[in-house]
């Protein structure tokens, strides 16, 4: 696995700063954006090695849409995109892909609960790259 640069997209500034610190302490370079739109622009410009995207930003599904857009690019297909959420099943929103159609549409490489547990995140990255090889 050769991940250096991670793109972090979240509309909560506190969480951006926290996750940035945590990931940096593990030796990653972290670039951040506070909206899906800016996130995509940064992705195109910086071509990061992995993306961590918050689900609910401007809209309930901003994270899914950003993930879809990233995965449609040439570079996006080669890197893991993980969706991050504080709203899971118990809040009533449907945040996981349950049908094949949804799975094929969303294309994320994993959904993780907030706050980030770095080990979990890294293992998601690893399994992505292991699959790719």
């Amino acid at each position, binding site marked *: 696995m050769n991940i250096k640069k991670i793109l972090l997209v979240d*509309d*909560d*500034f*506190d*969480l951006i700063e*926290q*996750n940035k*610190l*945590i990931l940096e*302490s593990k030796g990653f370079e972290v670039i951040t954006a*506070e*909206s899906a739109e800016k996130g995509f622009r940064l992705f195109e410009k910086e071509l990061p090695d992995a993306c961590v995207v918050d689900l*609910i*930003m*401007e809209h309930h599904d901003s994270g899914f849409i950003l993930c879809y857009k990233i995965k449609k690019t040439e570079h996006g297909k080669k890197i893991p995109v993980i969706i991050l959420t*504080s*709203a899971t099943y*118990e*809040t*009533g*929103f449907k945040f996981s892909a349950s049908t094949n159609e949804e799975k094929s549409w969303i294309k994320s490489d994993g959904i993780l609960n*907030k*706050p980030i547990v770095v080990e979990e995140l890294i293992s998601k990255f690893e399994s992505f790259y292991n699959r790719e090889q």
Partner: protein
Amino acid sequence: MASILIIDNEYPIRKDIYTFLTRDGYDIRTTLNGAEGIQLAISNDFEFVMIEQELSDHDGLKVLKSIKKVKPETVCFIIASNPCYEVAVEAANLGACSYVPKPLSYEGLSFHLAKGTKHRQLFIEARDLRRERYNNLVELSREKSMFRTVLNSINGGVLVINSDGALVYFNNASLVNLNLENLEPGEQILKRLPPQIAKQATEYILAEKYTSKISEIELEIIPKNKLYVQSVCSHIPRNSLGFSGVVLVIRNITKKRELEQVKSQFVSMVAHELKSPLVAVEGFLQILQNSEIKLSDEKKEDFLKRSYERVKSLFQLVNDLLDISRMDKKEKYRELEEINFLEVVQSTVNLFELEYKKKNILVKIEDEPNLPIIKAERLEISRVISNLFSNAIKYNKHDGEIIISLFSKDNYLNFTISDSGIGIKEVDKPKVFQEFFRALNKQTRNVSGTGLGLTIVKRIVESYHGKIHFESEYGIGTKFIVKFPIFRN
């Protein structure tokens, strides 16, 4: 006392017979003229009428016919000087009780009158029975039509199915609620019903004995929440254990379901909004505890301060939520008082003095003399003003201004509050009153809020039949216009 009318050209009965009949309780009148006889018989209630077959001005049978037509209950006799078989038959056909040959004897008359009395009783009984039967039929058809009218007026669909699966009855709403074009009484209905309802009804039809239990199912008739119904099935009892069929009641529950979805979505949003600040606080605490992450003292202090802010916002959110839930119930029993709006504005502005002075904001209040009174709960009005005023401070720039103006127009007390703040972007405008909506951009990143403030304002204003809207230009400022109906004594 029974009365007799005798229509005859000649004085028909002997004096002694007349005396005997009078003694027996009969009241006797006579006339020599057919035309007068008809007139008398029609306008009085004679029990018996005796008509001479050959009157000088009339045919006795015609007189009989005329009387019977109007007074069918009157017992008529034809008396004949020249009895004739054919005439007797015709008289009987026209409704004569007897055909009596002259001369009349007391015994003969008594016999015929007794027979006539019986005849009359039977006639009256038959007539009363006919009337009763007629009334019963009218009543029945009235009940039937009432039953139909009621069933057709109710909003729920009603289908009655017999134990062979044939449709016995259906009302208009059943067609609408099942989205069916038409139904025919007597048709095999189960195959026409949605499979779930057909299954529900079949279980009842095939049951071995009557049950008082009902079964309820909910199903979609037209997809995408266009038509959603509840189907309630029950037995129609017959004698002790049997049943004669099933009745299905189909209710349209689309609205109710929509409400449930809105409610559950609201709960999900609330859960998400409650979780977000908790996640942020947890994150700060984890970092502060994490020995791998080196932080300066200032950074540590900053994180503690930010945690504290998030906790505070959590409290605010809980308070706002409680307010919203209280509002629905409150409308019913709130204590209204006459309110001087200007007074509430001034005291609210005073409450926020520290905050607007910190940003060096100039606050101007413009009012007109003799402002009308409104009737409302003081706390709610002060909530409206403080939510709008605190927004005007929070989203204002340094050295900005806030202008509050109060005036009456068209039966409304108008309260406007304009700021020289960041304004609202066009894309965000439709979402301003939406629960949990907060415009997100550089300028708002350091402003805390729950996203419920304006939702609460709108709900309060509308609960008093007031109106609220806003005008805003991004980068220039925002103006909220609130109208409360004026209270007149």
